[in-house]
């Protein structure tokens, strides 16, 4: 029985270090290769020893696909390819290929230079790793080998994010990565055609959320910033650095006449904005339409942030990375401002368990920082979901669009997944799985096997009946010949000829005893009229020799010598007419209707 096996090495009932193994029709594919923000030990990378204890990974994996450049989707890539050892192809989109190394390098710097970790991948490893990357275009079907092909779909979320369809023969899996079903200020919405995959692996970060309209959120956000600034407080907005200043920033700039300085932390954002400019076709309709007149990514009113500015008096608004306050500038600013209740920090995205962001959002007021010092958080902490993930409705919408046979949830919290799983099974009537890390889901598939049909047979069938109706199965008699691993459907005569066999006829005969005292001829006549009235669609004939035929079925009446009171009807039919024949016998066994003599 062919099957699809899926094992999440990361992101199974969890957010972070996405890494999913899929075996489909004998091909093994690894989807994403991410790190976990919540851990600083071995747990931050997926456990690749699951794939193989010894030996190169290349022998076990046919390809690796990276959905987008967020570190929880590509963070472990150099480690995986250079340190563990993988030489096969790595597929990602062009923007991802361009931005990914920057983020990896940045990540490496923080880990090695700041935290002083040893045994971490080096810059050279990142470069070597990127050499193995094969870039794909949207909707381009890439043949990995003779059988395995992949195709990218637009996913929104971040620049270059893509959903991938992995297809072998007639079996396919779609992996969404992270995606967004509502467009945001500079990216469009995810879209997929009705590809009807066997399995859809979808993220479920916001499995239990149905978001307000984005404009409501924008309004709310603006109000909060305004109020704080008017109070004289400072606003820190944590942004995921790579999203071109973030959604929130764009809103703020577009709509506010803030008199206070607005800063953003340098580095990543600048580079990322540069890439947004490069990959205009990946952005949304608005930017595509207007970038000739006005580049959306030029910011006049924003100044680059310097660490010294944090101590300046008076209100200000700072966009700082990273978004979960686990390291870097945003964490520094947070530390400085946390003590003042006038200030506010806004978390616009999802925070992974274990990060400072998650802690303060869940209401923790005293944080233990490195070096045993305790930080008291007096500032306001606000959460405003601007992150570009699909909400519950969006996920359902995507499932509806792709029409998969079953759905597998990853990249979300177990409890929330549970809820969504229930919904999906109930409303879409699609089976749904949510494996934990290391747990394997096995899906039996029924791959369709193409069979060639001989033209003669087809034409004969067509001549017999009406045109073939769409989506309606139709019965057709023929012989299936399996030869040299291909299948052909031919007429039985041809099959006999090809195989050099003689035709055998199989005939069933049956005796039906009836109590009747009349003569055989009369009997036959009665049978004839009875059948004629019952079987209106069939050709019932009364032959001169006293027998009755229904199509090819022969019925003869005979009188056994021993008992004049009973007559015997001999019914005989060929194997091809089995259905009609058995119907007839059962009909005759019930007896003839009492004739009005």
């Amino acid at each position, binding site marked *: 029985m062919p099957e699809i096996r899926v094992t999440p090495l990361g992101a199974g009932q969890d957010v972070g270090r996405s890494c999913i193994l899929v075996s489909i029709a004998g091909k093994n594919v690894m989807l994403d290769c991410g790190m976990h923000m919540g851990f600083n030990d071995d747990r931050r990378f997926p456990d690749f020893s699951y794939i193989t204890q010894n030996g190169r990974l290349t022998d076990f994996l046919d390809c690796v696909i990276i959905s987008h450049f967020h570190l929880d989707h590509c963070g472990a890539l150099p480690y995986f390819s250079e340190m563990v050892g993988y030489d096969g192809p790595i597929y990602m989109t062009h923007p991802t290929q361009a931005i990914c190394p920057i983020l990896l390098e940045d990540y490496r710097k923080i880990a090695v230079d700041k935290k002083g970790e040893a045994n971490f991948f080096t810059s050279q490893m990142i470069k070597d790793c990127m050499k193995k990357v094969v870039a794909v275009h949207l909707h381009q079907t890439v043949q990995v080998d003779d059988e395995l092909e992949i195709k990218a779909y637009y996913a929104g979320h971040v620049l270059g994010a893509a959903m991938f369809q992995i297809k072998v023969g007639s079996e396919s899996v779609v992996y969404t990565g992270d995606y967004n079903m509502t467009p945001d200020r500079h990216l469009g919405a995810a879209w997929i055609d009705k590809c009807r995959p066997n399995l859809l692996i979808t993220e479920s970060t916001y499995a239990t959320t149905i978001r307000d309209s984005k404009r*409501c*959120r924008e309004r709310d956000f603006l109000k909060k910033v305004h109020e704080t600034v008017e109070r004289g407080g400072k606003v820190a907005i944590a942004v995921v650095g790579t999203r071109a200043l973030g959604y929130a920033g764009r809103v703020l700039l577009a709509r506010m006449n803030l008199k206070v300085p607005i800063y953003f932390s340098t580095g990543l954002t600048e580079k990322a904005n540069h890439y947004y400019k490069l990959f205009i076709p990946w952005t949304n309709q608005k930017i595509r339409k207007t970038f000739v007149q006005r580049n959306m990514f030029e910011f006049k009113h924003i100044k680059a942030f310097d660490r010294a500015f944090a101590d300046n008096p008076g209100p200000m608004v700072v966009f700082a990375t990273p978004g979960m306050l686990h390291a870097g500038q945003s964490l520094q600013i947070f530390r400085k401002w946390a003590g003042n209740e006038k200030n506010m920090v806004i978390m616009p995205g999802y925070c992974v368990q274990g990060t400072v962001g998650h802690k303060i959002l869940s209401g923790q007021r005293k944080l233990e920082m490195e070096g045993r010092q305790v930080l008291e958080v007096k500032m306001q902490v606000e959460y405003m979901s601007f992150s570009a993930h699909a909400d519950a409705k969006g996920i359902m919408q995507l499932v509806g669009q792709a029409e998969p046979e079953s759905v597998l949830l990853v990249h979300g919290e177990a409890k929330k997944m549970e809820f969504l799983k229930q919904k999906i099974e109930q409303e879409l009537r699609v089976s749904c799985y949510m494996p934990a890390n290391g747990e394997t889901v096995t899906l039996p598939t029924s791959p369709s096997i193409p069979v060639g049909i001989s033209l003669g047979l087809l034409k004969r069938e067509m001549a017999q009946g009406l045109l073939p109706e769409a989506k309606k199965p139709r019965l057709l008699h023929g012989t299936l010949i399996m030869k040299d691993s291909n299948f052909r459907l031919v007429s039985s005569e041809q099959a006999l000829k090809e195989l050099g066999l003689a035709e055998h006829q199989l005939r069933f005969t049956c005796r039906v005893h009836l109590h009747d005292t009349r003569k055989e001829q009369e009997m036959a006549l009665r049978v004839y009229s009875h059948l004629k009235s019952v079987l209106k669609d069939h050709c019932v004939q009364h032959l001169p020799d006293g027998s009755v035929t229904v199509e090819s079925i022969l019925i003869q009446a005979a009188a056994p010598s021993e008992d004049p009171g009973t007559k015997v009807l001999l019914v005989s039919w060929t194997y091809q007419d089995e259905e009609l024949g058995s119907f007839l016998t059962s009909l005759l066994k019930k007896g003839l209707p009492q004739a009005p003599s």
Partner: protein
Amino acid sequence: MAAHLKKRVYEEFTKVVQQQQEEIATKKLRLTKPSKSAALHIDLCKATSPADALQYLLQFARKPVEAESVEGVVRILLEHYYKLSPFEIFQANFPSLSLESHQVLAQLLDTLLAIGTKLPENQAIQMRLVDVACKHLTDTSHGVRNKCLQLLGNLGSLEKSVTKDAEGLAARDVQKIIGDYFSDQDPRVRTAAIKAMLQLHERGLKLHQTIYNQACKLLSDDYEQVRSAAVQLIWVVSQLYPESIVPIPSSNEEIRLVDDAFGKICHMVSDGSWVVRVQAAKLLGSMEQVSSHFLEQTLDKKLMSDLRRKRTAHERAKELYSSGEFSSGRKWGDDAPKEEVDTGAVNLIESGACGAFVHGLEDEMYEVRIAAVEALCMLAQSSPSFAEKCLDFLVDMFNDEIEEVRLQSIHTMRKISNNITLREDQLDTVLAVLEDSSRDIREALHELLCCTNVSTKEGIHLALVELLKNLTKYPTDRDSIWKCLKFLGSRHPTLVLPLVPELLSTHPFFDTAEPDMDDPAYIAVLVLIFNAAKTCPTMPALFSDHTFRHYAYLRDSLSHLVPALRLPGRKLVSSAVSPSIISQEDPSQQFLQQSLERVYSLQHLDPQGAQELLEFTIRDLQRLGELQSELAGVADFSATYLRCQLLLIKALQEKLWNVAAPLYLKQSDLASAAAKQIMEETYKMEFMYSGVENKQVVIIHHMRLQAKALQLIVTARTTRGLDPLFGMCEKFLQEVDFFQRYFIADLPHLQDSFVDKLLDLMPRLMTSKPAEVVKILQTMLRQSAFLHLPLPEQIHKASATIIEPAGESDNPLRFTSGLVVALDVDATLEHVQDPQNTVKVQVCRVLYPDGQAQMIHPKPADFRNPGPGRHRLITQVYLSHTAWTEACQVEVRLLLAYNSSARIPKCPWMEGGEVSPQVETNIEGTIPFSKPVKVYIMPKPARR
């Protein structure tokens, strides 16, 4: 047994049909061996009569042709069938329907369709065509099936009675036949089937309700064109059977069909294809019968999950509890899973209506967003409570990224503004749009503010401040802002009252400095205050002295913005104006009537007296028009007419006529000039006024005819030789003929008139010589009665004002000669007819100093329609010239182009593209209808 018999009969019947066909097959046209198409084309062009052409066709049919040209041939056949009697070609074509090629078959079916539509009254042919279509429905080619369905949709009828009459043909249920093809394997055929169904509906056949379920299944089709058509079909059915009840699957509840359809269409707003989304969003707007709670769901993403079914109070209570299960994403942690909820309650997908507009307004494609805004607008207009609820969403759309969407939402808001009151925070967002760099948006917003209700005095203040900011940033918006403040003030007098001291910066004890009277911002504030003061008598008490002075000044200089105020102790100002405004309307109307009635006695006066009377009346009317803007249209219209009459009388009074013999002199300047002028005036009357009815058109044409007669006579008198006269006479008689044909219905009203008499003598005129004709005409012109011009209800003179360029600038517009400079033209047009085709109407004209004139046709997109009867033209005129030594002025003006055939009522026999020598009816020309503006330009020689 009876059934069996019936079957036999049917079998026999079918056999008969088959035999018929065989018969036909014997004289089958063999198109299978075709010949060159070009030859056929030439042949057909030569054909003079239908019978001839048919002969050619038949000959052609026997000739061999290459297979490739078959399609071309068929096309030529199609082109020519118009010239042939349809029935004959039908007969000729019909047998060939058993052709092998699918393409040819499809083309032929197309032909049959055209034939069928040409003969709507011929039931027999239609029946046969439908039959043919049904027969070919089983064809393997999608093209043929498509055409068959199209044919069925266009010709199939539901009336069983007729079908039974046509002997031998079984009654066919066209709907069922078409419905069967909803599940065809080819998406194109499915689409065609739905389209055919829609076509049936359009032709007025009532669709069965059963189609609804079939159509609903098609909503999940794989192909977008099928889904798009299915959405339309569902909409149609929901409009037909809004109140019937349909069951909800998977529950035993029932629901109104229109509500169910609404839910389904709402669901399509989140379809994968944006074409379908646009279609769905558009249709939502027109579903007004939908119940209000369904409607309100569309704005709420969360609630929607349940409202699909009606629930008991108990269930509803539970729902309240469970509605917390989805987080809104505004607060961290509110999506933490709580205890298990009864999951039967929540349904995310099926209950489509939920949040449809939220989705639509957030859609990626702006086309969908625009459609959603439009739909919101329509629904809000019909339901005030919905208007209130959708306000927030509309206001949010003011911040959309795409300008068209912003503009559309502002317009929408304006349309529903009488249903709503803006809150302060909403006003805040609305006013933020004033910073927009697009002029259209700002002006649309000003229009919106004109008719918005503001709830608080802070709101008014905020609006004023923002408008003043806008004014400093974009000084060109001055007029629009003033106008906006005028309405803002007059709508909210009580809210303005407490703001007055602050706005005028008066102080209880100290006199403050007098503000600058020419400051546009100060004028703006005063406009607001004065308009509020009109209905708020206590306000003037708060004014300081200089305010009164400024009032007097503004009342004179900007009288359209500043109303008359009843100021205490200022009798001078108040008494002069205010009472007259209210009460003068009636007398002036009366006056108009009286002066027009006076004119009717014209007939009985001697020429001298008549002239004087006309002159007086014209003068009176003109003055009246100036005084009373409401009556300006009528007054002008009548004055123009009277002027024509006056000119005619004057021309006929000339001495020249007294001489019996032709003079051949150039002395008749006056008469010919009069004729020309009358012609011009009649064109103006016909095309420059909106609201002119058929009655008036007749009179105008009659006047023109008289002018033409005059012209003819004058020509006859002044030119030597008969040859040109012959032509002119003939032309004139032709025109009379046309007049008679066009206005045959109105002829009874023209008793005793010129035409009336003319038509009496028509037979004589036709036969007589030009000289005689002229003589007759002359006497008739003199004898003919003056026709009374009935006044139309609503008549307005088209007018245009060029706002920009202002023409006051001393700085020439410099540009390099030979290159192009763009001149921004901004003009308002009032009462210009036919806004859709205004492009053809307006023509900008640039008159260069060397007399060279250039016509420019503005693009359709340059016209905006800010209000009923008003248009705004904002365009760029490209100027270019060779070098001049000095700056010079060019003239820019707006012209109204007209085409005289536009107003003529269509005669039934004139239809069908019959091109007749319409001498008179196709005159195109232009009428200048704005004051010319001079622009100073300076093309400089290019520097080398």
